[in-house]
């Protein structure tokens, strides 16, 4: 098949099919096709991301302008009844701030980024890139999506309950999380309980999804697609699948136990002698351990952050070679790094727990493994930076985002290094420094990578390019605003700003205005930064509008592609018609070479796709690693 094939419409793919056209419901709602499911995940995830973003906007008001009533332009979305319950004379109360904070974290992590990265991109692109007709278990795939949607809706429905949604942090530590909303007689109507129910559903969805992904990648690769010919994207998805598969169950165990604590009044995580102001001595057996919850939570919690990261790195690693017309530098190192990263991510978790009173031995273990795990991350980032060197760089919209990912994620990663040492973490734990660190990784890091993916694969999904002008209007303000919001957090954190304060720190001023931290900073020095940061956040919201317009407008009016492979890329997803039909490929593809054959001296074109058969008098590409063909 020539690299410049004329675009095939999806309809042609049907000529081998004897299926009659399924009805609207089967095709667009209860679809078992991985592409449709991918899009369902993508749209749902983006809606949840927008919702989580709005919660943050209200929080930022409370931080920048504590004690001032919420302005009309933010409060109009809430009903009067809701406002009378949750806002005190229009002001954001501590309780409401906590609720928004807990749900912002939960929604962004569990309902937003993971479904977008793994569920949307993973589902759409992975089978295409390995040359498969669909996922190994299409019905299971569909169930994954609907269970995710159910879990997400249950979590968000709790906003409308009398108790409100969960409000004990996205980490939901016991004993607070076992007690909060305890005044509700029927516990099943409490937001904290519904959070746990939603979580169990989300974990089920992830488990089904990861089984599907790993099986597909192992068993449904096309002929000639050996392990070392897989695009890095697929390797990243494979590791992500294993992380989800093995790390989520302990959190499910913890969630079930916390659920039992709430509805069956057990004391898994409730210590003896627990005393609350409203209830006095708790009517519980006691004997439990809050620390147990933390261990089980963070056993998932740490691999979870790599679950967030890997799909984004996967997208960026695909986009860079396409736009530099050079192979990805250090492919093998990147593959081994991502495998080592996956392994190490399971044994670093207690670096989130340095302040729980752990002794020197276990603390040393976790410090060492945490520092070690920075090595594969750095290898990945370095390989991508070196991939730019000497390339013929085309600053297409996806490339802009991918190039921004690198320094932004770099800042995020580097600011994490001090936190690896418990000596430093002692001062920085639970401060804004941590918030700044992980938001740098997730927001200008991971999210930029995923945006890059949207712009990159949009032409394959729709047959049209997204508007470059709108892309720039989306990109540049986003980049500026992200840094405006999160860089000052690093400074504030070092000055001692505590996280989860609803008043931006002004209450601290009343008590300890001149107390200095190790760097000699006071809270007073940096409290005004809150205002710049909040306006940055609200401006960031505005900057997303061009993106949503672009998404929908370009579908109808974007520049049409002239070939099925508009970026002149080498990986298999570009061998399909546009959009790919049922069964994806017109004929079963064969793979003859690695995934990043760009600018080969022996080629007329500056790229040689994986699926193009070698010419008659050329020997077939040697298999990169003899051992791979065995399995």
């Amino acid at each position, binding site marked *: 098949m020539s690299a410049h094939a004329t675009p095939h419409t999806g309809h042609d793919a049907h000529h081998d099919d004897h299926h009659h056209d399924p009805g609207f419901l089967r095709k667009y709602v209860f679809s078992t096709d991985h592409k449709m499911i991918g899009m369902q995940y993508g749209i749902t995830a983006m809606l949840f991301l927008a919702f989580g973003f709005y919660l943050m906007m209200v929080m930022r008001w409370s931080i920048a302008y504590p004690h001032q009533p919420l302005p009309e332009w933010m409060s109009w979305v809430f009903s009067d009844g809701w406002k009378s319950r949750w806002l005190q004379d229009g002001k954001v109360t501590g309780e409401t701030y906590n609720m928004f904070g807990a749900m912002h974290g939960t929604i962004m992590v569990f309902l937003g980024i993971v479904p977008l990265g793994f569920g949307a991109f993973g589902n759409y692109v992975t089978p295409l890139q390995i040359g498969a007709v669909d996922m190994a278990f299409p019905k299971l795939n569909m169930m994954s999506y609907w269970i995710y949607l159910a879990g997400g809706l249950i979590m968000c429905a709790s906003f409308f309950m009398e108790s409100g949604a969960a409000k004990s942090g996205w980490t939901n530590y016991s004993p607070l999380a076992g007690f909060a909303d305890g005044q509700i007689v029927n516990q099943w109507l409490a937001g904290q309980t519904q959070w746990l129910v939603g979580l169990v559903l989300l974990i089920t969805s992830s488990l089904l999804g990861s089984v599907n992904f790993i099986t597909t990648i192992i068993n449904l690769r096309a002929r000639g697609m050996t392990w070392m010919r897989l695009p890095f994207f697929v390797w990243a998805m494979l590791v992500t699948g294993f992380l989800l598969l093995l790390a989520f169950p302990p959190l499910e165990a*913890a969630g079930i136990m916390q659920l039992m604590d709430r509805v069956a009044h057990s004391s898994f995580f409730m210590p003896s002698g627990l005393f609350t102001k409203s209830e006095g001595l708790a009517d519980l*057996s006691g004997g439990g351990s809050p620390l147990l919850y933390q261990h089980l939570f963070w056993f998932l919690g740490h691999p979870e952050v790599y679950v967030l990261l890997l799909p984004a790195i996967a997208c960026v690693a695909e986009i860079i070679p396409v736009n530099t017309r050079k192979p990805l530098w250090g492919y093998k190192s990147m593959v081994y790094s991502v495998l080592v990263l996956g392994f190490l991510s399971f044994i670093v978790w207690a670096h989130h727990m340095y302040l729980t009173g752990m002794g020197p031995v276990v603390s040393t273990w976790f410090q060492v493994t945490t520092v070690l795990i920075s090595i594969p991350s750095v290898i990945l980032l370095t390989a991508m930076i070196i991939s730019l060197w000497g390339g013929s760089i085309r600053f297409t919209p996806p490339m802009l985002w991918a190039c921004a990912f690198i320094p932004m994620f770099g800042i995020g990663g580097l600011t994490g290094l001090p936190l690896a040492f418990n000596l430093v973490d002692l001062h920085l734990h639970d401060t804004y420094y941590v918030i700044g660190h992980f938001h740098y990784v997730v927001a200008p890091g991971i999210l930029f990578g995923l945006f890059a993916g949207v712009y990159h694969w949009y032409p394959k999904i729709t047959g049209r390019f997204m508007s470059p002008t709108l892309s720039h209007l989306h990109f540049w303000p986003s980049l500026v605003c992200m840094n405006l919001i999160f860089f000052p957090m690093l400074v504030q954190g070092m000055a001692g700003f505590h996280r989860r304060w609803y008043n931006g720190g002004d209450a601290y001023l009343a008590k300890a205005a001149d107390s200095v931290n190790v760097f000699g900073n006071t809270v007073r020095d940096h409290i005004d930064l809150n205002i710049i940061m909040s306006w940055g956040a609200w401006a960031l919201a505005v900057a997303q509008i061009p993106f949503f317009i672009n998404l929908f407008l370009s579908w109808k009016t974007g520049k049409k592609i002239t070939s099925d492979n508009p970026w002149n890329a080498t990986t298999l997803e570009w061998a399909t018609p546009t959009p790919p039909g049922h069964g994806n490929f017109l004929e079963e593809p064969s793979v003859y070479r690695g995934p990043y054959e760009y600018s080969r001296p022996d080629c007329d074109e500056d790229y040689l796709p994986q699926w193009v058969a070698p010419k008659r008098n050329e020997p077939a590409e040697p298999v990169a690693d003899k051992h791979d063909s065995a399995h």
Partner: protein
Amino acid sequence: MEIPYIVTPRKDTGLTNSKIAIWLFLASEVMLFGGFFSAYVFLRIGADYPWPERTLPVLPGLINTFVLIGSSVTVVFAWASLKLRNWRKFQLYMGITVACAAIFMVLKGVEYSVKFSHQAVRLTDYTVLEGHLGYELKEGADSHHPKAEDYEKDHNGNKIEENRIRVETSALTFNTLRFYKPWIADLLDQAKHHGDAKITLTGDIKGIKTEGGKEEVLFKAGTPLSVDLLEEIQSLHLAARSHNSALRTAASRVEWDKALAANPDKQGWELSSEVNVDMEALKPRFLTEIQSVPFKVEPATRFIFKPRDIREAATQSRLRDDTVVDGKLLESPMVFHNLDAIDFQHLVMKAEEKGIDPQIAIQNSWIMKNSEFARKAWEWHNKKVEALEKRLIADYGFEADGKTPKREPTHKERYRLGWKELAKMAEDGGMAKLSFADKMKEEFMGPNYAARTEKTFPHLSVPREQIGFASKFAPAWNTYYAIYFTITGLHGLHVVGGALVLAYYLFFGRKMYDANPEWLANRVEVGGLFWHFVDLVWIFVFPILYLM
């Protein structure tokens, strides 16, 4: 378009899709149960109370182990029959497998129900008493041989356990927003039951319903209590609250705008103390918010409440939905119809922590001071412990120092009188022994109170103020039972799930067998792998939870 490698394995991996998938799933299940077992170890090591060792009857667990192992064998025979294309044999073996699953769940159900009906209480001095509670009887009924119609029933027609808080209620005040509807219905029913008492509004509820309106009587005194009434009051209150909140918000905005304009160099956070909304000026525009609704009960009636639902005090108690119950707290003992265990282990642990001699602490406990039966039983028990001590020294001797015995009775043997001991004590005192069959039944259903009577397992009334913490043998009782029920419950759910899948192949697999027998064999193999894993988990659950 067909997904490949569903039936025939892929050449280079040698595996079908479902084989890979089931092993992936089993790996995640290893992590799930591993998480629970880690929790078990953590809770046991960190327990600040005596961990209940060998507290469950072993026989049901043992039989369940045999049943599950047997079903593991038959499921693999079923798969082998399919591979040998013998449909009848497949049906036979798969049928036995599913039947075994059913037996397992039935036994588990029996185990659970026995525990859920068994009561435990930890007194304030840390003595633990166990047994079965009695049920409320009507006046004049024979408490030793009650007939079915002698029992008091609640408004749902259920017997009432003798573990209730009784309040001679004269007034009830409900929280407008938080009242719990089922409890309102229950209170109304109780009032009807007990001499047709009337619950009515204590006084007129006056208020302003519309802005600028006059104060009027919204609800008249004497209106009878009903859920509808409370809901009406609630919606009025919510409307008022919204209205007033909007007014205050608008006023607050105005004040802030003024303050910010007057202080252009200051930031908002510096000004918050200077922004004051003039509430007095706003008050005329407010609607009346009705936070609570007071009712009176005429005549004052004895209401009963579950202990968990109420925080009781001498003259005023509070329900968990914030209802205030005014009235005298009556005697509310917990009455054991059959006390079947006295456990001093926790008391001894607390005494040892304080450096007090355990035997003295035991002598000073409430039950020893108040129960002749307990004193007699403890005396008998101590003789047995002494005899055990002597025998252990005789059988095993001393350590190198010549003073410390090599083996000593455990804490449990010293300080716990279980039901088997009390039964033995009664038999030693002349009580007729039970038949072998009855004894076997006791291994499953717990002590046979009817046959052994209250001579073995006496009545005991425990005053409310002696009670520290009480619960059935349920997850709430202690962390051991919590983890026991959670692990076995989750395991049980896996048994049910696996059995459903296998039963599906048994009853609906014929069509697939005729069309593509190898496909069915593969599916049964995958189902069988899951079944073996369920058995594997139980192989660990049984010794860890039942024997250790």
